[in-house]
């Protein structure tokens, strides 16, 4: 990050409002530039109550105009405490951690004719990081060719938003799943050509899970990016491997440090060109959280 050395910053809370049952959106003042953040990275949040000594890792949902947006679910004592912090309070937050999605790889493939449709597949709390990712992909698409802008509606501030995707023959689709209540779908619509919603109980959109919806929608996509619960990630990764479609997945694991020092958060990765060992142990926080879906060794 330009000018911001890696470490912990004291940051002002600008907003912290409930957007769905148990789901909160926190906006923080953030001095690093948005170009310094890779979608899929996370930050460590520090709680005021020091009896909870470990930081809480939360994915970056969006960075814009010196504002960092995070979306979290209240699941325990730490996130419960977070939900009580008020705008104006300050909070200690780490500089961005981990390796995000490899957007460069996608941009390179978008430059070829073979990659036309990118699918963001996310479930539950895997949806928030898709916002910044969709924005980056939209920019990557706008950057690949001299694409005309749709009609006469050029968005001067953010020209990538009005680029004519159809003329470019590229598509960005989000397939997102929830237990029941849907959140962040409107935000995603800003950047995606279509947002398909699934709920486990059928209360909104498709009745079923993300992979079923992908299949029902006619198997769109020649590049997948996924985030969400492990069973969902595994299912989507298996689907892509079978179809020989590239996929990146964002993993989650209990963390101590979040920066690679404690070796608490390992996962098994079988690198494509590694024939020597069945797998290597990698750190989710430092080597990930995003990995190639075909390289993850899924434990049951």
């Amino acid at each position, binding site marked *: 990050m330009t000018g911001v050395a*890696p*470490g*912990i910053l004291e940051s002002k809370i600008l907003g912290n409002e409930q957007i769905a049952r148990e789901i909160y959106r926190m906006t923080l003042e953030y001095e690093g530039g948005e170009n310094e953040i890779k979608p899929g990275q996370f930050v460590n949040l*520090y709680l005021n109550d*020091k*009896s*909870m*000594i*470990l*930081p809480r890792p939360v994915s970056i949902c969006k960075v814009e105009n010196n504002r960092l947006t995070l979306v979290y679910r209240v699941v325990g004592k730490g996130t419960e405490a977070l939900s009580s912090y008020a705008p104006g309070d300050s909070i200690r937050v780490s500089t961005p951690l981990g390796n995000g999605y490899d957007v460069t790889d996608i941009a390179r493939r978008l430059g070829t004719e073979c990659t036309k449709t990118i699918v963001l597949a996310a479930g539950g709390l895997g949806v928030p990081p898709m916002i910044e990712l969709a924005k980056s992909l939209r920019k990557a698409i706008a950057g690949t060719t001299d694409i005309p802008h749709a009609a006469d509606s050029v968005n001067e501030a953010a020209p990538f938003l009005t680029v004519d995707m159809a003329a470019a023959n590229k598509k960005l689709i989000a397939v997102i799943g929830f237990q029941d209540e849907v959140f962040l779908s409107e935000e995603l619509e800003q950047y995606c050509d279509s947002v398909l919603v699934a709920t486990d109980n059928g209360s909104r959109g498709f009745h079923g899970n993300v992979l079923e919806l992908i299949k029902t929608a006619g198997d769109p996509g020649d590049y997948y990016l996924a985030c969400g619960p492990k069973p969902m990630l595994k299912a989507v990764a298996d689907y892509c491997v079978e179809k020989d479609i590239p996929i990146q997945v964002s993993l989650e*694991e*209990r*963390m*101590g*440090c979040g*920066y*690679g*020092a*404690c*070796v*608490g*958060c*390992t*996962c098994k990765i079988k690198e494509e060109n590694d024939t020597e060992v069945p797998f290597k*142990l990698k750190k989710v926080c*430092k080597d990930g959280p995003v990995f190639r879906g075909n390289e993850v060794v899924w*434990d049951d």
Partner: protein
Amino acid sequence: MISFHKNQKSAGSNADCDLDLRVTIAGVTLDNPVTTASGTFSAKESGAFYDINELGAVITKGVSLEPWDGNPTPRIAEAYGGMLNAVGLQNPGVDAFIRDELPYLKSFKTKVIVNVAGKTKDEYCRAVEKLSETDADMLEINISCPNIKEGGISFGADTAMAADITKAVKRISTKPILMKLTPNVTDIAEIARVVEAEGADGISLINTLLGMKIDIYKKKPVLWNRMGGLSGPVVKPVAVRMVYQVRRAVKIPVIGLGGIMTGEDAVEFFMAGADVISIGTAALVDPQAPVRIKRELIDFMKNNGYKNLQEIRDALL
């Protein structure tokens, strides 16, 4: 052999103020008494947050004769004012460590203390033998590991085994040997006395306290390994008490650790009798903790009129 430098004006890093932070243990002089606790420091990762040259010494993650995969996850759980870990000593093995990590660590002026783990006496000895041929400054033997030949009780929990392992590694090592003791014993002073008698050059304590956490809704232990090592501020009073007892039981240097989060915590360990301190969990929580704590220690000394570490050690009434 311990010697504190009595405030001779030095050209060292603390020359700009009147303080002398240097300390010599087992013939090795550290620029300052702040070190990293084993398993909580990684040169590349930690080095992204501060200049490693600021540290008196780094104590590495435990290395064993062969590579170890460690435990499956979850390996980490939070406890009130602390954490539990069951990493299970994942490490690439001593050969890979010597080849890939040690040269980088030695590129700093900071001293390098290599922590050694093993499941049998022979494993410890063969790893120590290999490390003796390197330019590591000192070795720290983690005897909290379970002895698989003796039904898995920890080497450090039994006086005879602790003595035996100390004698064995001392016979082979060309480097000074620190024995890192487990607090999961009834009489820490007794263990300290036997390792001193067998020739240990110093003692580090405490390692983690064996603990457990149960998820009452899922009705199962949080850690895959069920049990794990408790560390962080919650263990500090136990650590201070043990450093105090060991200081009074032996003459060799003592590296004190366990829950040090601030410069004032560090001072407490010096007053209890530590010669050097290590920062563990604090560095996981705040990557810059080691250098912050060093700064806070300096501030404390300035504000309270201490000129060197010996004065703090002598201060306890």
